[in-house]
């Protein structure tokens, strides 16, 4: 594995150079906290280890995106025939993300890139993106990433992993995409592999030691879906929920979406928007019948999807990277770690 040392004095010049070939995204702090945004030419990513409120998912899966359009003008050829909307899928790099946000992309890929269908919008954006993570040296109190198999220096899904060494970044190049990106920045000070890996290991272990919350997920697999679905704790868990959906928007692994049409003059556009299983509209039939019409049913759906359905369907672990964003952002303190514990330790009472 190749390691590169990047002097922080050269950082800005390097990434500015990469803008010739790449659109850049990265953490930006504003009145809403730290968000991952597209970086305008004069904006630099805020690499100050602020915990981004939102994950990096919007780089690949925008909150709203045009998917199809058609002309409704009957005087022109091909009216009312829908075509793929034109979108720019030129190379882009997202810098300074929390490492496990890239692991989350790998989990979401299981939904969008299947043997039967490929979602071309998600797949094209994913292909076009270089993921540059920044190792977390001071994990926050909500972080339980080590419990779910990721961690503050998780490399899965990343193209480059940076470690902050005060005056320099030590960059571990994890893929050809990452190699190409660092080359485009002009970062080429190769350093000793063995030494660098040892340094990474120390930093990782130090960071992992600072993670205070642990969650057990080992028994989720052996329980049946019906057993957990019918468990007696869902009313208690859902009691305080106001169905705001914040947990689903901040979650790096939540991918549910809605499709809506809009017409402007003679131009029809079909959009895809983030949706949330917390909304009663999400499942309401045209007849008014709603299979998840109550709050408890919806809260249960969210946790069952993440911690049981996904696990059973793909056998690739749970649909959670342990970032703790949903815990931090929940206005009524619903905590996935507690729910996970209740599900994992649940024993049916006869």
């Amino acid at each position: 594995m190749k390691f590169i040392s990047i002097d922080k004095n050269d950082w800005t010049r390097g990434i500015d150079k990469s803008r010739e070939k790449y659109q850049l995204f990265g953490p930006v702090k504003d009145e809403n906290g730290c968000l991952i945004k597209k970086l305008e030419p004069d904006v630099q990513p805020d690499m100050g280890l602020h915990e981004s409120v939102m994950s990096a998912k919007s780089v690949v899966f925008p909150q709203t995106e045009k998917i199809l359009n058609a002309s409704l003008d009957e005087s022109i050829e091909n009216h009312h025939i829908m075509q793929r909307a034109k979108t720019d899928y030129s190379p882009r790099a997202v810098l300074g993300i929390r490492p496990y946000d890239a692991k989350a992309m790998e989990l979401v890929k299981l939904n969008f890139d299947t043997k039967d269908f490929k979602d071309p919008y998600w797949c094209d954006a994913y292909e076009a993106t270089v993921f540059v993570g920044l190792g977390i040296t001071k994990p926050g109190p909500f972080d339980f990433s080590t419990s779910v198999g990721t961690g503050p220096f998780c490399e899965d899904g990343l193209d480059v992993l940076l470690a902050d060494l005060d005056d320099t970044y030590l960059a571990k190049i994890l893929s050809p995409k990452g190699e190409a990106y660092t080359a485009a920045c002009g970062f080429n000070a190769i350093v000793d592999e063995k030494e660098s890996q040892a340094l990474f290991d120390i930093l990782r272990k130090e960071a992992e030691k600072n993670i205070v919350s642990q969650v057990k997920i080992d028994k989720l697999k052996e329980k049946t879906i019906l057993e957990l679905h019918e468990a007696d704790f869902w009313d208690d868990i859902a009691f305080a929920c106001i169905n705001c959906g914040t947990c689903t928007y901040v979650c790096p692994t939540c991918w549910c979406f809605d499709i809506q049409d809009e017409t402007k003059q003679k131009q029809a556009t079909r959009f895809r928007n983030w949706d949330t299983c917390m909304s009663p509209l999400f499942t309401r039939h045209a007849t008014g019948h709603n299979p998840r019409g109550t709050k408890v049913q919806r809260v249960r759906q969210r946790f069952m999807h993440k911690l049981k359905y996904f696990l059973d369907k793909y056998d690739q672990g749970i649909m959670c990277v342990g970032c703790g964003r949903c815990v931090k952002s929940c206005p009524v303190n619903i905590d996935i770690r507690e729910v996970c514990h209740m599900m994992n330790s649940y024993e049916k009472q006869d």
Partner: protein
Amino acid sequence: MENPYIPYPVRIDDIEIATEDKSLKTFKFVFLNKEDEEKFSYHAGQFAELSIPGIGEIPIGIASSPVEKGFVKFTVFRTGVVTSYLHNMKVGDIMGIRGPLGNWYPWDKLENKNVVIIGGGFAFTTLRSSIIYMLDPGNRSKFKTIDVVYGARSPGMLLYREELFEWEKRSDINMHITVDGTDDPDWQYHKGFVPQIVEQNAPKADEDTYAIICGPPIMIKFTQPSLVKLGYKEHQIIMSLENRMKCGIGMCGRCNIGKELVCKDGPVFTLEQINQTPKEY
């Protein structure tokens, strides 16, 4: 791989009012491109997204049968934004169809079996597709006895009436048509609800008999005990479910019952499978 969100362009070729209250219409579509018709190769029991640019999409069971060539048919109940718009469209209008989607009734497993088809109200579309498929001269010998129990509120609410009465005359299919009630003195078929007609008329189950049920949730709920009384086991009861859908290809995340997605893993499930999942439909 092709973009699964792009519908095939179609032209409305015919519109027929399907019920006396005009709440259902049957739309016949022809593909603008001949090759799209070949790509839209389907089995009885599948559905498709009817796609109106600028308005939206709706998942609807395919009412035409794979043995009917040159067109596809859908019978649509007017209820929401898209279906209301569709009901006001005209012959010649251009729109789209995306599919075929989902799985289908297990035709391989049903070969050399007795098949009982049970439908209620306007959930008879994919069942019509199935009956036409089974009665096709090339297919009829693949199945043993065929029984159909179909009920609606009144005679005028029965779908595909002309075909029903044609089938009634045939000897290779046993029709049990019923209505909840009617004051028509000439009504010569059953009166009563579907579960009761099933119990009185459907064949008793042996291991070579399968039932396919499609209907409103209340009918399904009350028909199950009738079938159990007749000896049907969970794996012999095949059902087609509906849930709210958007993508139809297993991605948008709303139609699940447990880990199964109704759009992609279904809509056809056996009762045995459904009993392993939360009943969120």
